[in-house]
Structure formats: structure tokens, C-alpha cells
């Protein structure tokens, strides 16, 4: 630097800037020539240039980190997800716009959805990208089907009929709305094989829906996700769903046919009338097994009285069809045993249905088959906690109705179908031979016991919100569970689980139209 400064440090800085700029090629040709001339005659300048240059080249030693193997993939997925979320947000805004400009809504909705999912497909090379994109939608698919529309959920939110101090709904896994594909992939990777099977099944069902139906559920999902009260809506949805799945099919059907406001009113009415008395009682394992044993014993011991009562009620039309409750124990072939088992199951079904009606009747005194002693015995089969809760409901007719509600689940024909399938396809020949060697009235309880041990449940899934019946698109498989429900993990069973023990939504639902759209 040719300019002389009075401050030595300023001089150093200026010299340094000049030399560094020279090395970086930032000086003019003339200026560079002057620096070179000075370096030629000034050892200090030359030395500084050399040191700057050498230390600069040492930076080549800095590590150049190789990006992770999946960096590109996760980056693209993340961007695809963001793009889809952007589209979904646009999508969710459309229903509000609908009130103002319906035509624009339809056009915008379609464009947003198409753009979002096309982007996902275009960006993400991972074949699971679509599944990951839809993960949270699929997780809530059952509940979405039960609530049907965002309008109903918002009506519910505006006029929440559930008591604040009532039984709390099962915790809702409120997930991060901005989670990445990588985070979702980790969730799926952490799933058990069974959970993944469930996920794939639900996904298959969802893909089997018509475009309009899928669009409907995507709109609902996006509307909830983008709602300012998203967490509240999700919690409320879960609360409603717990109530919904515990209702008889007739109530479920009625609920789904009503418009949002009358639907909330009907719900409120049902809650006020105590139509779901006992819904707060969650049966523990001891109570489930105790009740199952009581039902088995009762239907066996009181077979004659029940059948007689049934015949009387039918106006003397004789014994119901299906043969005797205790058929020939020496059933010959395997096929005969299976047929006998099927008949026995149907018979048990009829008897238990009658039992439930007896419990549910407004005038139980007209149905003497369930004595006071038997009611005491039934209560004694429950755990002390459940029993105390049950007995807090007065009068006894109320308790009978609660028990009838529990029994409703045991009457599911799906369970007997599961049992038959378990017998026919799951257990090995040795076990089947052993069962067939038993008297038929021992065979059935033993088969149930084996089924329970296999993880297939005990058939008494009352109070279990995962036992879903009669959804919008027809009956659902019993014993299903939400594949992301980490709070109720399920131990893998030692033997294969009967297919009916998992969530199964019939493909036949594909053609149904979503209600309340």
C-alpha cells in the first residue's frame, strides 16, 4: 500500500486488505503490478503474501461432508410434503370460499388437490411417499367416517354437549402438523408388523374409494388440520367417536343421517337422557373374563328355561331352529364337527340375544330367566372397581341395561365367524384333533380359550372403542385398532391372529357416498 497512515494499526489493516485483495484477484491490473513490484523489493511484504497464501491453502483441509445417503430423498420428500400441505391449506380454505363463490371453489379445490398430489408423486421417488403423505389421514380414517363432515365437528365444537367433568376421552395423539416425511417414516418403521398390516389394509381401502370419496376425506382432513382450533377438534372428534362406537346400530345410523345441527341436538338429548349410562365404565380384563364366564355358564345352565321362554314368547311355535344346544358329542368327521360347531355358535348367538333382550327390557320382571341371585352372581364376576361403578347406577334396571350394552358386543356374528375361521384355518391339525376329541360343550369354551391366548380377544370387547361396528360404509371388522395408537400397544401373538381380529373395512364400501357433504 502506497498510502502512509499515521496509525500503525491502520497501516497494517490497509496493507493486509491490499495484499489479500491482490491474492483474490480483486485489484486492477495496474494496482496488482504495483503490489508485485513492492513485494519484489520488500521481504516483509513478500513474506506476508506467502503466509496469506499458505494459510489460505490450508483451508483445503476442511472436511467436505458427504451428504447423508437419504439427504436428497428426504429433502425432496420434505419439499413435496410442504407443497402438498400448501395445496391442502388452499384446499381447506375453499369451503369457506364456497359460501361466496361456489364455482370458484370447485375449480380451486380440484386444482389444489391435483397439484398437491401430483407434486407428491412427481417429487418423491419413494414408493411409500403417498402412504406417508396420507399417514395421518389414514390414522383418523375411521373417526372421519364417523363424524362425516367438518360442519358437524364444528357444530359439536360450538355446542359441546359432553360434560366437562365426565369421563375423559382416551388421549388423542396430537401430532405435529408440520412433521416431515422422515419423521413419519420413523413412525412407520417403529410399527409392529401387525400395525403395518393394518396400515396397509386401511390404505388399500382408502385407495379403493372413488375419487369423489377420497376427495371428500382429504377435504375433511385438510379442514381439520388447517383449523385454528385443530387440537380441540381432534380431541372432540375422539370424544364423540368413543360415544358413537358404543351406540347401537340404530343410533349410529340415525346420527349419520342427520344434518349437523339436529345431529348435535340428538346427541345432546341422548346424553341428557342417560342413554349411554355406564358408558364411562371401562371394563378391565378381569371383568371381561368374568362376564364371559358368567355368560357361558348361564347360557349352558339355563338352556332349557331360555328355550322354553323363547318358545312361549313365539306363541308356542316350538324350539328355535338350529338343533339342540348339546348335539351328539361323538361327531364323526372333521367336517361334521365344524358343521356342528357352526350350529352351536348360531344357537349360542340366539340364546345370548335373548339374554340381552331380557336384561334390556323395561319390565325385567316379565323375564324370570335372570333371577336376583344370577344378577348378584354376574356382579360378583366383575372386578371390584367395575362392580362399584355399575352399582352406582340405580335402579337395578339401569344396571341391567348397562350390562345389556356390554353383551351387545358379545353377540357380534363377526366374533363367531372369527372363531370358526380360527378353528378352520389357524390352529394346527393336532390342536384341531384334540378339540374334536372333546365333548362339544367343552369344545366351545376350550376353543374360545385358545382364541384368547392367540391374541384374538375373548369376544367380549365391550367398551373397547376399537371394536367398531356399522360404520358409514357398512359393518367393520371387530377388534380393530388404530395402527398409530402407541398408547395401547399390543403384544405380538405367538400364533397367527385370525384375520377378523384386525381392522377390516370392506372393499364394498368403495361405492358409498359420503353423507353430509
Amino acid at each position, binding site marked *: 500500500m502506497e498510502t502512509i497512515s499515521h496509525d500503525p494499526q491502520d497501516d497494517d489493516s490497509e496493507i*493486509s486488505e491490499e495484499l489479500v*485483495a491482490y491474492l483474490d484477484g480483486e485489484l486492477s491490473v495496474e494496482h496488482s503490478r504495483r503490489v508485485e513490484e513492492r513485494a519484489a523489493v520488500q521481504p516483509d511484504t513478500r513474506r506476508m503474501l506467502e503466509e496469506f497464501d499458505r494459510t489460505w491453502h490450508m*483451508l483445503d483441509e476442511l472436511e467436505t*461432508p458427504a*451428504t447423508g445417503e437419504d*439427504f*436428497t430423498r428426504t429433502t425432496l420428500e*420434505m419439499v413435496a410434503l410442504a407443497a402438498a400441505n400448501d395445496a391442502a391449506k388452499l384446499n381447506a380454505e375453499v369451503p369457506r370460499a364456497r359460501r361466496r363463490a361456489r364455482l370458484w371453489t370447485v375449480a380451486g379445490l380440484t386444482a389444489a388437490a391435483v397439484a398437491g398430489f401430483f407434486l407428491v408423486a412427481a417429487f418423491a421417488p419413494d414408493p411409500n411417499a403417498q402412504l406417508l403423505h396420507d399417514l395421518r389421514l389414514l390414522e383418523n380414517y375411521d373417526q372421519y367416517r364417523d363424524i362425516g363432515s367438518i360442519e358437524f365437528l364444528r357444530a359439536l365444537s360450538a355446542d359441546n354437549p359432553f360434560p366437562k367433568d365426565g369421563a375423559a376421552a382416551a388421549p388423542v395423539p396430537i401430532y405435529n402438523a408440520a412433521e416431515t416425511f422422515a419423521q413419519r417414516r420413523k413412525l412407520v418403521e417403529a410399527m409392529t408388523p401387525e400395525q403395518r398390516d393394518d396400515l396397509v389394509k386401511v390404505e388399500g381401502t382408502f385407495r379403493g374409494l372413488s375419487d369423489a370419496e377420497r376427495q371428500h376425506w382429504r377435504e375433511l382432513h385438510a379442514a381439520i388440520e388447517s383449523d385454528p382450533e385443530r387440537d380441540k377438534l381432534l380431541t372432540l372428534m375422539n370424544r364423540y367417536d368413543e360415544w358413537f362406537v358404543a351406540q347401537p346400530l340404530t343410533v349410529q345410523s340415525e346420527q349419520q343421517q342427520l344434518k349437523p345441527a339436529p345431529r348435535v341436538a340428538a346427541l345432546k338429548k341422548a346424553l341428557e337422557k342417560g342413554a349411554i349410562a355406564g358408558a364411562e365404565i371401562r371394563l378391565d380384563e378381569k371383568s371381561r373374563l368374568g362376564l364371559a364366564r358368567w355368560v357361558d355358564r348361564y347360557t349352558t345352565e339355563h338352556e332349557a328355561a331360555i328355550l322354553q321362554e323363547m318358545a312361549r314368547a313365539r306363541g308356542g311355535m316350538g324350539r328355535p331352529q338350529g338343533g339342540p344346544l348339546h348335539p351328539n358329542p361323538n361327531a364323526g368327521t372333521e367336517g361334521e364337527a365344524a358343521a356342528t360347531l357352526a350350529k352351536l355358535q348360531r344357537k349360542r348367538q340366539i340364546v345370548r340375544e335373548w339374554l340381552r333382550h331380557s336384561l334390556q327390557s323395561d319390565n325385567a320382571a316379565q323375564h324370570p330367566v335372570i333371577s336376583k341371585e344370577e344378577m348378584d352372581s354376574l356382579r360378583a364376576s366383575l372386578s371390584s372397581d367395575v362392580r362399584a361403578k355399575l352399582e352406582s347406577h340405580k335402579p337395578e334396571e339401569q344396571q341391567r341395561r348397562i350390562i345389556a350394552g356390554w353383551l351387545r358386543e358379545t353377540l357380534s356374528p363377526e366374533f363367531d365367524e372369527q372363531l370358526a375361521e380360527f378353528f378352520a384355518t389357524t390352529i394346527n391339525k393336532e390342536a384341531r384333533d384334540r378339540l374334536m376329541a372333546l365333548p362339544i360343550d367343552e369344545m366351545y369354551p376350550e376353543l374360545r380359550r385358545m382364541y384368547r391366548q392367540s391374541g384374538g380377544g375373548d369376544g367380549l370387547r365391550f367398551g373397547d372403542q376399537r371394536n367398531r361396528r356399522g360404520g358409514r360404509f357398512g359393518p367393520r371388522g371387530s377388534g380393530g385398532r388404530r395402527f398409530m395408537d402407541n398408547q395401547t400397544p399390543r403384544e405380538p401373538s405367538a400364533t397367527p391372529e385370525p384375520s377378523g381380529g384386525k381392522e377390516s373395512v370392506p372393499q364394498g364400501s368403495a361405492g358409498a357416498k359420503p353423507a353430509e357433504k
Partner: protein
Amino acid sequence: VAVSESSARRYALDPDVRLMLEVRDGSATSSAAAFEELVVRYQVRLVRLLHNLVGNRESAEELAQEVFLRVYRSRQQYVPGAKFGTWLFTIASNVACNALRDRNRRPEVNMTGSESGPLGVRPMDRLARDASGAMPERLLDKAELREVVRMAMEDLQPRQRTAVLLNKFEGMSYADIARVMDVSTQAVKSLLSRARQHLRQILGPYLENGAFPHADKELSDSTIGSGGFSTASTD
């Protein structure tokens, strides 16, 4: 941003700019393909820059993804008025700056006050501490050299470090760096000068005789010479 037609034409010849225009204007498929190409082209450079800025590989990758996401979300606002790399690294610089600022607001709880600089333990303090006692026996190997260089870089002020990285690894001119960092060209000149003085101060003696700086010596950006170094040798 007003861009002259000639500038736009000139930059449109840049293949990366053309890719970005495809991201902006192309069909969903071609847009996605062009974006993927840009990610592949720039990911290593971007992660390297961010890694050296924030000092952590995992954070660097997360920030790089954030940068790419911003690029995508800003695609409609993209104007080919500059090299694509300049635009990309401008975003990266802002993202890194924000990350460092957030980090400084939440200092590491396991660090004592005396050891903590703006980014935690002062790298040169750590280096001197790690090397103490073992100096005569240690080998001057490549791994050690790399570590020393890394720590020397960490000891730079963030803005100096940004300028160095853009200049050294991205080959950016002072004008481009000024654009990325939103400062004047003269400011870049000053930043780079002070940074290289600092590097020379730390790395020069090490290169000569393996000397490490004293842990208790406060290094100054404006100090020229070897006053900040110990005289330990590597014999």
C-alpha cells in the same frame, strides 16, 4: 427487483438459472425434475457451507433442507437477475444467521461462563487444552491438521467465516459476496482481510512448528504476528 433485459438474458444462459426457471414455470413433472437436479447439484456445497458456519453436521443438513424448502416456496418470486448460486447462498446465509442467532439466545447449559464464547467454548481454548502436555509426542498428521484448520475457522467471527467460505469454496467475487451478505464491497474486503490475518496468525506458526495458541491468550482480529501462539515445538 428491476432487472434489465440484457442481464436477464445473460443469466438465463446459466444452466442453474434455467433449471430454476423450469422450477418456477414448468409443469409439475418438469418442475419437480428440475428442482431435484438443483438439489443434487448444490446439496454438497450447501451442506459444506452450513457445516462450516454452524459447526454441526446434523444441523447443517437440517438447515440445508430449510434452504431448499425456501427456494421452492420462493420459486414464484424468483427473478433471474443474478447467478442462481448467489441467490441460493443468500438464502443460506440468512438461514444460518438466524440459526446462529437463535443458538446464541439459548446458550448451552453445560458450559461454564469462562469457557463460553458466542458459540460455546472458544475453539482455540479447546484446541490448546486438548493439546496440552501431549504436544511433544503427537504426530503432525493430516487428521490433526484438519482439526486445527477447523478450529481456526470456528474461531473466526461468523461474518468473517461466511465471507471466507463463499470466497474460498464458492469462488465468489467480493461483489457477489457483498450481495449475498447484503453489505458493501469494501466491507467484504475488510472482513476477508481481517479473517485472513486471523487465520495467518493461528495457522502460520502451526504450519511452521506445530505451535498451538495459549488457552489464556485472547486473540484479536486486528493483531498481526505470532503473539497469540505458544512456542512449543513438535520435535
